[in-house]
């Protein structure tokens, strides 16, 4: 495994680490009487809003259609995810030090699995909140459910819901790209002409 792959793995770990400092995802709810919208941010370990009262205000809106109130404590994932990410970073650093291609491939697989599980979990929660409605809700509309879009824009009654990755989500995506690039370069080396070596060295130096 080449030095460049190690460096890319470190870079990937830095991107993963960024998810501690910026939200992974955001959901924006727009309605005429909410100028500026209500923003919810999903982080590794918390859910925040435009201000500290956004969750309360979202819950007040949601209770009319019988949606369960959203509380940070309801999500055990928010307690687990920081540890998962710490383990991913630790393993990444180990791979970069040991410089073993198979371990690298395994680590990248772990990253992909973690990301996918996270997204599936996020989708499941969206569906759970949007579909499990109190049968005694004041506003009931035949056939209507209220899950925000997994990704994209969707109109729910008077509210336009927008859901997209935030900086943390983008950082995780970049981490994956860097990790895949590292793997590609690590495995590409074996099929390569030794004459190409100086070029690789050059790149390493430049990097």
């Amino acid at each position, binding site marked *: 495994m080449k030095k460049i792959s190690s460096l890319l793995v470190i870079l990937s770990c830095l991107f993963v680490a960024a998810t501690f400092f910026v939200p992974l995802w955001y959901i924006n709810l727009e309605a005429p009487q909410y100028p500026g919208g209500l923003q919810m941010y999903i982080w590794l370990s918390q859910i925040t809003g435009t201000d500290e*009262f956004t969750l*309360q*205000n979202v819950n*007040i809106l949601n209770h*009319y259609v019988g949606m369960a109130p959203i509380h940070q404590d309801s999500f055990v994932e928010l307690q687990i995810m920081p540890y998962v990410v710490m383990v991913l970073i630790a393993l990444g650093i180990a791979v970069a030090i040991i410089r073993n291609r198979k371990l690298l491939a395994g680590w990248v697989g772990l990253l992909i699995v973690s990301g996918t599980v996270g997204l599936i979990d996020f989708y499941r929660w969206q569906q759970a909140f949007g579909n499990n409605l109190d049968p005694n809700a*004041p*506003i009931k509309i035949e056939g209507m459910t209220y899950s925000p879009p997994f990704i994209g824009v969707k109109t729910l009654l008077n509210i336009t819901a927008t859901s997209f990755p935030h900086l943390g989500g983008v950082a995780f995506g970049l981490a994956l790209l860097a990790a895949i690039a590292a793997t590609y370069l690590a495995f590409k080396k074996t099929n390569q002409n030794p004459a190409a070596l100086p070029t690789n060295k050059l790149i390493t130096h430049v990097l």
Partner: protein
Amino acid sequence: MKTSNKISLTLACAILAGSLALSTGCRNTESTTGAAIGSDTEAAAKVFVAPGKHDEYYSFLSGGFNGQVDVYGLPSGRLLKVIPVFSQNPENGYGYSEESKPMLNTSFGFIPWDDLHHPKLSRTNGKPDGRFLFVNGNNTPRIARIDLKTFETAEIIEIPNSAGQHCSPYPTDNTEYVVAGTRFAVPIADGGGIEDVPLDTYKDKFRASLSFIKVDQASGEMNIDFQILVPGFDFDLANGGKGPSADWMFFTSYNTEKAGTMKEIGASQNDKDYLAAINWKKAAEYAAQGKAREIPANYYHNKLDHKTHIVNSTQKKTVRVLLPEDCPGMMFLIPVPKSPHGVDVDPTGENIVVSGKLAAVIPVHSYTNMIKAIEDKAYETTINGIPVLKYESVLAGEVQKPGLGPLHTEFDAKGNAYTSMFVSSEVVKWNVKSRQVLDRIPVYYSIGHLMIPGGDTQNPDGKYLLAMNKITKDRYLPTGPELAQSAQLIDISGEKMKLLLDFPTFGEPHYAQAIKADMVSKNSTKFYRLDENEHPYATKKEADARVERKGNEVHVYMTAIRSHLAPDNIEGIKVGDEVYFHVTNLEQDWDVPHGFAVMGNQNAELLIMPGETKTLKWVPTKKGVTPFYCTDFCSALHQEMQGYARVSEKGANVPIKFWLGEPKKGI
């Protein structure tokens, strides 16, 4: 048929136009209609604020006999808010809720109304700072402070030894003090208070007082530092010096004749009345040196506690007084043409303009001349130990033939003054240096005060002038005998004044202030934080909502959140109980107030802002079932936000019980 209608209409218009010209004594007929809005798209464009856009200025117009302050956006003339100050306001429960009732306490008892005259913005370094608005109550002498973070009355202080408290609340250049003076001289006893004396003893016994109220620089809190007891003239208006003259406060006075009856004639005999000039720094020094005598007094000081939102009333028992004869160099009288109204100091602090409403000229006194006359001891006479300076020795010059009935003057940033002319119903623009009249514009009708944003400070913003008129007549659609007042917005950015907008105002705006919107809007509170609510009866969680009986008092700890009140079913209340609904609004979002009202309650309603607790008292008079409900359309299920209180006979054996949804705990 059609033609005859047309003819009679034309005739009516001609008669109307004729009476209009008569009633205003209008000379400038060309602009009567020519510059009016509607026929002038350019003027319309200048005051058009597109839907969803904000005005450039906040303006605060006094409501006069409605006891309130009306907040308008300028240049649009849109009404933004009515702030109750000295008057009870059933609309939001001000003066009705248990928390706010003490704000209207005075030594005379609870006074539900006053005549609110002059708004003045607080200043920092000679500039309006957008923190507080001070206003006076003319009838039962009081000064109030409005907090511009919340647009709520935060404090009212009563002024003892005073009556017809009109020349207030004028601030010094840095709001060290605001002043208050008597327009109605009264027999102030040596030991304090207003005496019971025969009314024909006016000349001997009646005196006036000029109060200096210290303003705390951080909190804005007011406290009477000292009062100066002066001869029994009627003190009319005041204004602080600025820049070089910042240590001085000027008051106009009339009835220096000391007529006690038929003042209309009696107070208009002397050719000259007096401008009182007081060196407030010197006065404060005298007071600090022990020249002030502490005398008994009885007045109230009511303050809003920002943590509990409860007004606390304190009764004050003494006040310090200074006598001019004991304090040389503190006070001087300067002759001015008779019966002056406004005294206004130009932005340089040098020129002191006195508008004598019965005078044919506008005198401009010079601060430099005044200081020189004091140094030279150029005294005409002394009155009660107060030196009277010679008119000519202080005068800078007079504005000749300005118009009729000059009342009040403000300034632009280019060295011009604008004086309101009550009798000739116009605004006259003149140059302060040359004292030449430059322009005049009719106003509709009989203007009192005028206002230029910052036009009373060192930093005028010479774009608009607002004329506040005393007579409305035909300006708007008729509404029976009682009409709204009228205001006109005038563009003063060019050489010629130009009428832009005509809009009705409420109560009687005696004066106004205006400030660039962002100076105030950036600090505006959106809602109160529930976690900072220290009201003793606050209920911060719906689970804590409850009802408790203490003797014949029933305390309902109620919460309100979209879209229910908790509890919404209450039993065990009896006829004659004192029921206190302590309603906490649990919302934490902007513009989600809840209202609260009870059927048959001899009281008003409450409007409770998010995070706030307010208390409505109810003494049920009839047995039966009494509904209560949210009065402010808060949500799609607002109409469902209601509940019932069961009222049983006195002595009935119905226990206190309450619930929301399913019946739950009882006591």
